[in-house]
């Protein structure tokens, strides 16, 4: 993306100075009291050296200046806030995180007595941070209950909206429905609205915070 932060900032002035000093050294070496003939030859050779060096130095300086200019401009724009948020502005990235978070929530909050262990195993990969800790605590309570009541929970995501998105972090608002079926009872549907924080892991998003609103 055009707003990515520069890793390093090259320093134009130092590089320029180094090249100038190099040219100066050649001049100083010329006044060494050698015979005029050799000195003349030397001067001719020097005649093309400085011009080439100056052009190279100018090129380097300009290229670096352009680089620094871009970095400074990018940093200024990033500070403005609105453009730092890629939600919807980067449609593909927005769809990707919304889709992945939808899949994660559906997966970790759907189980039958038979699949609850598999659900927990997968949650270990899909959740991280506080969300993972809270999920473990929740499931410790639910595990026995699910077996006793023959509980099946099915979660569907009604809507997911990305509020804020950077390359490695996203905040979403998610509407989801949960249908709980217990042996010998009518199914009950619960509507929920969650604030979700996701972080980009090595090759996929992980949900790190879930807050019921």
């Amino acid at each position, binding site marked *: 993306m*055009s*707003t990515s932060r520069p890793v390093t900032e090259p320093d134009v002035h130092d590089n320029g100075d180094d090249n100038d000093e190099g040219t100066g050294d050649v001049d100083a070496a010329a006044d060494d009291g050698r015979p005029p003939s050799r000195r003349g030859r030397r001067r*001719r050779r020097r*005649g*093309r050296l400085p*011009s*080439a060096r100056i*052009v*190279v130095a*100018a*090129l380097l300086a*300009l*290229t670096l200046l*352009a680089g620094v*200019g*871009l970095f400074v*401009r990018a940093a200024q*724009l990033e500070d*403005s806030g*609105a*453009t730092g*948020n890629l*939600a*919807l*502005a980067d449609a593909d990235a927005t769809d990707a995180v919304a889709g992945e978070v939808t899949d994660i929530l559906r997966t970790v909050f759907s189980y039958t007595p038979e699949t609850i262990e598999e659900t927990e195993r997968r949650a270990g990969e899909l959740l991280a941070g506080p969300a993972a800790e809270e999920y473990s605590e929740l499931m410790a309570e639910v595990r026995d209950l699910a077996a006793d009541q023959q509980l099946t929970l099915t979660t569907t995501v*009604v*809507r*997911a*909206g*990305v*509020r804020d998105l950077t390359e490695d972090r996203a905040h*979403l*608002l998610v*509407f989801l*429905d949960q*249908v709980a079926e217990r042996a010998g009872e009518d199914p009950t*549907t619960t*509507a929920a*609205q969650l*604030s979700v924080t996701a972080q980009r892991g090595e090759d996929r998003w992980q949900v790190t915070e879930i807050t019921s*609103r």
Partner: protein
Amino acid sequence: MVRTLRKNALLVTALLLALVAAIGATGATFSWYDASHDETADFAKARDDALAAARQGVQNLNTLDHADFDAGMDLWLDSTTGDLHEQLEEGRDAFAEQVGQAESVTTAEVVSAAVTELDERAGRAGVIVAVRITVTLPDEEPDTKTSRMLGELTRTSEGWKISGLDQAPVG
């Protein structure tokens, strides 16, 4: 001597050409960057404006005091456009009667909201909003519940306004 000069001339020419190319590339990079960034910035601003309008609009449309019906209703009309605006205008009198009889006071607080769709050129946006609504009836404890709303916004000459608002379906 002649060969050296020619060599020098060649070298200098080559470097000058490279310099010109570098300057050109720099300029092109800047103009490309500015152009693409202006578009992104405009889009981001439209998104943030629509979201702010949605939050305020949804709060307005879930706030009404029977004792101050006209002011509340004016705010509703001010927050809306299109079909929704017309519906509210048409239903105003009947609604005033209902609210007057119930003596209800409704307040709202937007908990969270997100823009889910944005067509900047057409001036249309879709939002989802979680809003905590408290209804107070005479001689009753206030009742608070969170609602999930799906909204549609349309850009008008006075900024973004709500053109459609529904509860998100359950089940």
